[in-house]
């Protein structure tokens, strides 16, 4: 099963290396890792997407906890949470198809952020499946380059109206 793990870590040099090293060494697979600031100065939040059964996930979380620079580990798959990813994709697009591509992009609430003589760059955010769907539609035009940030996520508030 796919799990999204949120890890609060000290914002220290090498902390990403420590986490990645641990996951690699213990043979846990990583789909993506994203790191950035957290709400607390001095701490970063890492969001790790991984796959495994219950036993493996328990090990992942326990082994992460053993790292001195790890403050908190939370499996977001166990709670309602919001998970998003940012996609940038450069599509082959001569003047004749630009309009068409804009039409595809729009329902995804994505936007065109750069236009060149033979290509345009699309930016989209959302759940992984939505970005995958958009990519499928863009693929026939020719994808020149793309970059995805990997998933970042937060747990939802307990009493909330889902958006």
């Amino acid at each position, binding site marked *: 099963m796919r799990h999204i793990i949120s890890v609060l870590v000290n914002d220290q*040099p*090498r902390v990403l*290396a420590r986490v990645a090293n641990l996951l690699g060494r213990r043979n846990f697979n990583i789909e993506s890792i994203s790191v950035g600031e957290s709400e607390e100065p001095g701490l970063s939040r890492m969001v790790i997407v991984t796959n495994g059964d219950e*036993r493996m996930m328990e*090990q992942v979380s326990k082994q992460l906890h*053993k790292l*001195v620079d*790890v403050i908190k580990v939370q499996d977001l798959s166990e709670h309602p949470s919001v998970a998003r990813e940012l996609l940038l994709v450069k599509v082959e697009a001569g003047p004749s198809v630009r309009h068409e591509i804009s039409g595809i992009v729009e329902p995804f609430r994505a936007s065109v952020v750069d236009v060149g003589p033979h290509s345009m760059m699309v930016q989209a955010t959302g759940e992984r499946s939505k970005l995958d769907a958009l990519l499928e539609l863009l693929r026939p035009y020719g994808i020149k380059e793309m970059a995805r940030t990997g998933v970042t996520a937060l747990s939802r508030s307990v009493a909330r109206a889902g958006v």
Partner: protein
Amino acid sequence: MPDTATMEKMAERLAEAKGEKKEFSGSEILLLSLLKEGVECVFGYPGGAVLPIYDSLYSGSLRHVLARHEQGAIHAADGYARATGRAGVVIATSGPGATNLVTGIANAQMDSIPLVCITGNVAQSLIGTDAFQEADIMGITMPITKHSYFVSDVNDIPRVVKEAFHIATTGRPGPVLIDIPKDVSNAKAPFHYPETVSIRGYQPHCDPHPIQVQRLHQAVREAKKPVILAGGGVVTAGAEEELIAFAEQARIPVTTTLMGLGGFSGEHPLWLGMPGMHGTYAANHALLECDLLIGIGARFDDRVTMGRLDKFATGAKIVHIDIDPAEIGKNVDTFIPIVGDVRKVLQAANRGVPCSQSEEWLQQTAEWKKRYPLKFQDSEESVKPQWVIRHLYETTHGKAIVTTDVGQHQMWVAQYFQFAKPRSFISSGGLGAMGFGFPSALGAQLARPDETVICVTGDGGFQMTNQELAVAALMNIPVKTVIINNRCLGMVRQWQEVFYQERYSEVDLTASPDYVKLAEAYGVKGFRAKTKEEVVQVWKEAMSHPGPVVLDIWVTPEENVYPMVAPGSGLDEMIMGDEKQ
């Protein structure tokens, strides 16, 4: 213990440092911090990047043991730590000095031994440039340290040292690396040593959950065929008395893993011996047939379970007591997990522990012990290695610290020397690192000068670190080294005999030095024995000699370690060694 003159210098040094405004170099601050931690002895080897540190050591306020190889230094520090439970300290220079520590660090990590490893590094202006003798030792050792520090500011040294000792020695102990670039050990700052330590991401569990202890009581009450599997955690926690009380009150037999030897007396009637690959019939069959298995500070590794979890304690409820939550559920499914310091858990468990219903079971395990004891074919013409170990045991009455190297002799020591006290068996368990035995004996002897320290080693392993004879001679460290000389890499030879149709590939050590002359070249007394009478004689002489001794004992080379469970087999498929007859 350091001598009085050194103690006075240490005290002077610390008093000086009280002058608030005074500034010290980073290396002085490091030294003062080590003194604050109560360090009495460090092991190490100098070089360019630690010149400032060695200059500070020149004052003589901290005892330094100059090994002849950094691997020797770190294994000695490790032996010191295993013999005392306190952190061992080692210092090495950048680059090659640091990389020479790697085996020792991995060894300490695998066996959960507290070490503080201090390495110099090139100046920060050169870091990352492939400068002369630069190595990313922090990166290299990341998977084999409990934690590591790169000190970029001289003002951080006291806090880092304080934290390093705290992390190395508490919770599940392990090695901590402190990498100090040369500009930081040269930089100046005042010395303030923190009184307390608080690390947000590091809060080891200590006290057990009362509900789990109640569940343990319930399980013990119901058990008809209980067994305790005690590991190194019992020794680390100093829980030997609590374990005896628990086993006796609950009437449960005990098997101790290699790392657990001495954690439960080998002379106790409830002891079943060591389990696993070279374990006793009684221990292995108790694990196979039990209905309650209580793992205490043991990690169910593949040398015990043989990796055949489908065959391991299949009818048992498993209770797992360990200070490291990650060990619980890692290898075996646990019915009752108890996270906590083993000693505290057992103290809690001993309050009101019921008696199990083990009467018949105890008869059964006693019967196994009687029917299938460890045995070997003794001989009058030649010297059997097992006989040598038994002789050492009998003549010392078991009152000795024994370190081993890795291989057949290690298993024979584990089998035939019945360790009665914790911290009396010192061996590279998890990593199985040849070369560990001799330097670790030096460290153990320095830590416990009044004990008899015996190093039982192989002719292969001894040659990996025998350069430390120089240290033994120079410091007159009276370790009795017993080389079980079978003129081959015995354990590998055994596997080639049993699993590779006697195709003996690269295990012949007949072209080895004359160990008596080798010892003498270093100024150490050497003896050779090729018959039982000679063994008795030279061992007597060795024991009465006040200094270090090397005994070269020629044993029969074709002896194998039995019982044996082949890799891939379950514990029920023991090869007892007498099948041929």
